[in-house]
């Protein structure tokens, strides 16, 4: 009696296991940074539909979100990400240095392995009371600038580099003048939050500061979420092209046997359907057709890349954000 009961239980457990395996044939883990939550939710659904139609298998893409640097650290420490979609190449480089993927990862997909981009813009209070039009206005003594700490926030490193690049392009611009400009800008920073969302809260909810430096995607989202009657978005004359790249984590994908679907997933990001979703979530699409369709959302802006001006992330990181680097030399706050 007891024996048969045990057998029954075992049998039913086995069934449960089989049923679970059937329900989700393939699972991928996409480890991403914070503000991509809504974007990848819609992309993952669309990709699952297409993969089912093409190959007949169902794919579930699980997500993990967090600060870009912290996410990279989790993957190094053993979070089994099939793909990573982070805020800056420096964090994926860190994975490559640990041997998790090939050093040539950024050449494997078009456009520096960055399917969509953003840029750094200004969010100001409604009516722009301090008349902030361009980077030069941020160093005026009566302007308070809110930005997260470039040392703790990958997104904020783009802010800092955008300001530097602007100063370099001024007539007579040099590393010395750029350093003086960025130093003057950060003297106007009263609070350094550790992440981008924290800085947005400080600016929008606490009412601190006159201008928030933010990714265009975040600025447009903040205006939509927090009220278009409270904030304006100001696009400066020139800014940096923020490139959040994507990559398959070779070691993990090979171990899971998911390389084919992981690569297809990242290629899917470049398709017109996914490009349009990116545009809807305020990321600038690479695809010309999608860009044309959403031209009203994204005003024209001259951008420079980190490779052009700073010789890539490794160099920029070592010069500006390492301990004792330029950011440590300039003082923050008055």
């Amino acid at each position, binding site marked *: 009696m007891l024996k048969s009961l045990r057998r029954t239980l075992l049998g039913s457990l086995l069934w449960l296991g089989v049923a679970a395996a059937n329900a989700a044939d393939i699972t991928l883990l996409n480890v991403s940074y914070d503000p991509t939550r809504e974007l990848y939710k819609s992309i993952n659904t669309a990709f699952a539909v297409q993969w089912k139609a093409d190959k007949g298998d169902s794919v579930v893409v699980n997500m993990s979100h967090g*600060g870009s*640097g*912290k996410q*990279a*650290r989790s993957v*190094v420490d053993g979070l089994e990400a099939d793909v990573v979609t982070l805020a800056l190449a420096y964090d994926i480089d*860190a994975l490559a240095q640990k041997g998790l993927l090939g050093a040539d990862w950024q050449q494997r997909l078009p456009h520096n392995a960055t399917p969509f981009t953003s840029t750094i813009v200004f969010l100001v209070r409604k009516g722009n009371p301090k008349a902030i039009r361009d980077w030069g206005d941020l160093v005026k003594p009566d302007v308070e600038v809110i930005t997260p*700490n470039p*040392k*703790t*926030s*990958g997104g904020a490193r783009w802010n800092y580099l955008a300001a530097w690049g602007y100063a370099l392009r001024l007539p007579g611009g040099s590393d010395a003048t750029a350093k003086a400009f960025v130093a003057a800008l950060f003297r106007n*920073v*009263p*609070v*350094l*939050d*550790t992440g981008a969302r*924290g800085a947005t809260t400080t600016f929008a*909810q*606490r*009412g*601190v500061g006159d201008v928030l430096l933010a990714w265009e995607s975040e600025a447009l989202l903040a205006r939509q979420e927090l009220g278009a009657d409270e904030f304006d978005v100001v696009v400066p004359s020139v800014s940096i092209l923020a490139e959040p790249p994507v990559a398959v984590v070779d070691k993990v994908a090979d171990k899971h046997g998911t390389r084919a679907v992981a690569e297809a997933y990242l290629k899917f990001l470049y398709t017109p359907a996914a490009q349009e979703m990116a545009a809807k979530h305020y990321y600038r699409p690479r695809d010309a057709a999608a860009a044309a369709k959403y031209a009203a959302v994204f005003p024209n802006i001259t951008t420079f890349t980190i490779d052009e001006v700073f010789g890539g992330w490794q160099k920029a*990181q070592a010069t500006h*954000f*390492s*301990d*004792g680097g330029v950011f*440590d030399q300039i*003082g*923050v*706050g008055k």
Partner: protein
Amino acid sequence: MARRVLPGFGLSLGYTLAYLGLIVLLPLAALAVKASGLGLGGLWDTLTSAQVLAALRLSFGAALLSAVINAVVGLLVAWVLVRYTFPGRRLFDALVDLPFALPTAVAGIALTTLYAPKGWLGAWLVPLGVKIAFTPLGVLVAMIFVGFPFVVRTVQPVLESLDRDIEEAATMLGASRLQTFTRVLFPLLLPALLTGFALALARAVGEYGSVIFIAGNIPLKSEILPLVIVKQLEQHKYSDAAAVGVIMLALSFLLLLAISLLQRWTQRWTER
């Protein structure tokens, strides 16, 4: 060796040591191993950098000050809760524990909302020149908040167990009110007060979640040590982060050890 009254000493000691080793010492050892990757020179450079020194001063300075304030106020609160009956006493008693129950990030956001220039209190204080949010003062306020329950909860039971007879005896023997407190009651409360002080101090030193929202986090001015560790981690510099962690632990341990010795000393002094 005399036979102990309670059996099982060896077993329970073994269990205690194994458990302490597993839960406390093992993670600390891992931290030390990670930090040792730097070598002595690298360790020295990391620990003597201007940022680490400034953060050390702020973290330990503010934590000590917050623990002192909590000791004084906590003793008062415990006294009032034990010695007086008034309507709503149980409610106030329950309120004391609230800082424990609140997730620290929530506490930080709430405090920042209060003290920010446009907040309820900040709107009044900032025009008077008292800036709390986004200054080292904000760090102190957050630390006082999270450390508050410790002193109340350690002193309260001792106060409750004190016999009123002692006070009466003191009065009968001619002690003034002040003398009764300073010479009779205070020495009896001191060990518990020191325990509460040490707990509040340790909590404040390690606090990250609530402080980070209100501190402003300006390098060299309002950066706490745990943030310096986070900054090292963001640069994928694990050994440096571990090194700062080790120095924090070492300093905290020395402080706690000193308090514990002080406690032993006061206990002996009271018994005499």
